[in-house]
C-alpha cells in the first residue's frame, strides 16, 4: 500500500492503496464513479474509458499510480448543469439499447471530436472502431457523433467573418 493522489473531474483525492491497482477499480470502488465500467479488463472493449490529458484511456489496464494528469469521467463532461453536446446528441438520437457500453462510446467520441472537430464518416468509423457495443448501436452512435459535431461547430465563434453592421 502507498499513498497516491488522483485528480478527477476537478477534485483531488488522496488514497492509500496498492499502486498497481488498475485505475478502474479505484474510480469505481473508492471514488464512487459509475461512468467507467468493467467489460474485459484487457483493454479490448472500451467500457472503462476515461479521458486523461485529452487521451481516451482504458482505465482497466492503467495502473492507478501511472496516472499523471487529471482524469475526466462521464460524470465530468457536462458543464454548468448542461449536458455535453455528445450526451445531448445521444438522447436526441435515442442511441442506447441496454446502454452499458455507452460510457466508452461517449468518452471515446469526445476525445475524437476534441482532436478532430469535423470528422468524416471514415474517421468516425476508424476512431471508434475498437469501442464495442454488443447491442450493436453503432449506426446510431455514428449519427449522434455527427449531430454533436455539427452542434459544436455551430456554437463556435466563426473567425475571419465580418460582422454586418
Amino acid at each position: 500500500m502507498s499513498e497516491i493522489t488522483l485528480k478527477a473531474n476537478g477534485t483531488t483525492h488522496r488514497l492509500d492503496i496498492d499502486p498497481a491497482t488498475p485505475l478502474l477499480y479505484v474510480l469505481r470502488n473508492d471514488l464512487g464513479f459509475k461512468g467507467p465500467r468493467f467489460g474485459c479488463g484487457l483493454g479490448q472493449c472500451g467500457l472503462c474509458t476515461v479521458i486523461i490529458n485529452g487521451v481516451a484511456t482504458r482505465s482497466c489496464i492503467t495502473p492507478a499510480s501511472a496516472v499523471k494528469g487529471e482524469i475526466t469521467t462521464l460524470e465530468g463532461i457536462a458543464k454548468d448543469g448542461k449536458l455535453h453536446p455528445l450526451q445531448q446528441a445521444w438522447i436526441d438520437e435515442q442511441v442506447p439499447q441496454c446502454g452499458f457500453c455507452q460510457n466508452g462510446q461517449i468518452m471515446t467520441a469526445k476525445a475524437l471530436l476534441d482532436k478532430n472537430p469535423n470528422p468524416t464518416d471514415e474517421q468516425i468509423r476508424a476512431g471508434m472502431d475498437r469501442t464495442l457495443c454488443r447491442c450493436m448501436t453503432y449506426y446510431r452512435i455514428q449519427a449522434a457523433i455527427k449531430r454533436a459535431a455539427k452542434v459544436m461547430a455551430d456554437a463556435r465563434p466563426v473567425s475571419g467573418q465580418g460582422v454586418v453592421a
Partner: protein
Amino acid sequence: MTSFTKIPKQIQEELSRRNFLQSAGMLVVSFGPLLETAQAQNGSGQAAGPYPDPNFRQLDSWIVIHQDNTATFYVGKTDCGQGTGTSFRQMMSDELDIAYDKTNLIMGRTDTTVDQGGSGGSDAIQTDGWPMRRVAAEARRVLLEMAAQRLGTPVNQLAVSNAVITVRADPAKKVTYGELIGGAKFNVALTGRDVDATTGLAKVKTVQELKMVGQSPQRYDIPPKVDGSLQWAVDVKLPGMVHARNVKPPVAGAKLISIDESSVRDLPGFVKVVSKGNYVAVICEREEQAINAARRLKVNWQKPASAPFPSSEDLFKYMRAATPTSSEKPEVEGNPEAAMASAAKVIEAEYDVPFQGHTAISPAHALADPSNGQMTIYSNDMKSYGMRNGIAEFLRMPREEVRVIWMEGPQGYGRTAADDAGFEAAFLAKELGRPVRMQWMRQEETAWDTKGPAFAFKLRGGLDAQGNLVAFDYDARSADYNHVGYNEPDTVLIAQLMGIRRNPPTPGGRGIVPTEMYALPHRRNSTHVVSLPLAWETPVRTGNLRDPNGPQVAFASESFMDELAVAAKADPVEFRLRLLNASTSDDSGFKRARSIAVVKAVAEAYGWDTRPSPRPVGSGNILTGRGIAYAVRNQTVVAEIAEVEVNRTTGHVWVKRLVCAHDCGLVINPQALRGTIECGMLHSLSRALHEEVRFDTEKVTSVDWVTHPTLTHADTPAQIDIVLVNGDPHPNRPDLPHYGAGETICKPMLAAVANAIHDATGVRLRRLPFRDERVLAALKTARV
C-alpha cells in the same frame, strides 16, 4: 450473523412501496407520501423481510395514484434495452387517461411488482401489455365512480382527461385523481386465472381512442444512461460487502483433487476460499484483490479420461455421424418422396452453423445480501422472478425469505450467465454471512456463458419443369442436448459443478423448423438433437440466445430458398411471392397476407430490380450484390434485404445497406421500435460475419474480443432503412393487436447476407460465419 440494513438510496422507494402494500385493511385517507418518506428515511422498516408475493388480483399491486396527481405503475417485466418500459407507460397512461410525463414505472422487483415473468419470448407488448392495459382501464373506471359520488353526477355525464374528471355540463365542477385517492389504496379486487388474464370490470380502449400509443416519447431510461447518474446492478455497494471471483476448471470435465489455500492465504484482503465439488471461488475484501487471488490460487485438477468434445474444426463431421439423443417424428404434408421423385430437378445442400455465445459486453455479476436471515439479490437477470424461485430452492430457503431486485445491466438476450452469477453470489453470501458481490471475468464469460446451439442441416428441394417448387425436405441436427433453462436450481453452472444432475437432462431441440408461410404441399421437416460427449459441467452448454434457433433455421431455409430460385432461374423476391401466393389459406393473424405485404414492402423500399441471381460477376476488386430473406415468428413478419460489397483480394464482406420491412401489428412507440430493429439486425449481422465459439478437444479457445470477434463500428452499414408496415392489410378489421416485435428481426439477416454474397460473386457460402479467410478461400476455390 451481522445485520446490514443500509439500503442503496435508489432502492428506498421500493421499500416504502412494499410497506404501503402491506398496510392491508388500514383505512387511509392521505397518508401516502409523508408516511412513505418517513419509512424510507427510517431505512430498515420491513425491508428486513420476509417478502411475500404482491397479489396480482389487487389493483393496488399495479397502480398507485399520488397526492400530486401523478401515478406510479408497477409491472412484473424487465427492460433489456429495447424501451419496453417506456412502451408500458404509454399503454397504461393511455388507458388511465393521465399524461405520460405524470407517470413513473417500477419493474422486475420480486417484492414490489407482481410476477409477470420478467423478459423473454418477445412477449412484453404482445402478452403482458394486455393485463397492464386492463388494470389501468379499471383504475380509470373506479376513479370515475369515485368522482361521480364526489361530484354528485352520474358517470355517463363525466369527462376525463389528463387525470382530471369534469362534469360535462359544467366544466368548472372537477376533481383530480390525486384529490380522489392520492396516496390511498384502491382496495379493488381484480380477477383472472393467472397474471396474464388479470382484469377488472372495465374494457380497454379501442385503437382509435388511444392517444399515447403510436407516439414516440423519448425513452425515460436514456438520459441517466448517458449522464452517468444511473445506478446499475454493478454499482450497488453495501456495508461489509466483499468481492468474489470463480476459479473454473482449466479443462472441461476436470475433477478437483485439492486446493492449496496457502497459495493465497497471505495475500492482502484475503477472506476465504469456498469450494464444493468442482465449484471453487475466492473471496477478498477488495475487487482487485479477489481477481489477483483467483489467478494465484493453486488448484490441482485431474483431466477427464476422454475428450469432452471434438474440436470445433471437426464439429459438423461429428454431429452428422452422431447417433441422435432424440429425433422428433417428422412433420409430413402431402407425399414429399413421390413429389421429389417426379421433380424435373432436385437440389440438395448442407448448411453448418457453429455455436455462438451471448458474450455480454459486461461479464455476469450479482450482489447478494444475507442480512437478517433473508436473501436479497441485486441482479440484471431478465427473469428476476425465476431467479428468486430458483435461488430459494437451491439454498433451501422459503421463497418469502428471498427477493431479487432487478436493476439495469448489460444486454439480456436470453439465458445469459447472469443466472449463474446470481446463484453463485447467493450461495457465497449464505456461506460467509456477508454481502458478496460476484463478477465473472471476460475470459470466463466468453468461454462459459450459455451458447446458441450449433446446427448441421441438410435440405432437398424438387422443382418441376416450370421452376415451381413441388417438394421440400428439411433435416436439422442441433447440438442442444441438456439445454439449460432459466434459473434452474439443477442446471445452473454452480449446481452442475457441485455434482447436481437433472435426471433426465432436458432433451433440447425445440422449435427448429422453418415457420415461413410458403405454400409447400409436399414437405417433410425432420429434426434431431445430438449430444457432445460431455453433457455436464461443460463450457459448451446451450441455452436460449435471442430468438433461440431462429437465426440458424432461417439461415438454412432462406439460403436454400435462394438456391432453389437460382435453379429455377427466377428472381428471389418473385420466387418467394409465388410461394406465398400459391395458397389462399391464412390464419388468425392474416400471416400469409401480411407476409406478402412485407416482402413487397421491403423490395419496394430497397428499389429491387427484378432479375435472377447471381448477377454477372464484375471485373473490379469490389463485387456488389443484394439478397433477401423473410421470416415469421408468432404473429410478427419481417423481411430484410442486405446489400454487400465483397473484396475480391481480401475476402472482406461489408454490408453497405440494410432494408427491413417489419409488421408487428399495432406499434406502441415507433422510434423505440426502429432502434430495436436496427440493433437486432446488426446483432444477427455480427453472427453472420464474425461469431463462432471455437474449441480444441479440452477447452473453449474463443475467450475474449480478439479470439471471439464481434461486429464493430467499421462494419456498420452506411445506410439502414426501415419500413413499419404497421399491421393489417384488411381495412375492415376493427382492431389491431400489438404483437411481439423483437426476436423476429434476428431471423432473416444471416441468409440475406449469404444470398447477397452469392448474388455478388456467384459463390454460395453454407457455413457461418463469413470471416474474411473463409470467404477468400471460397472465392479462390470458385476462381472468382
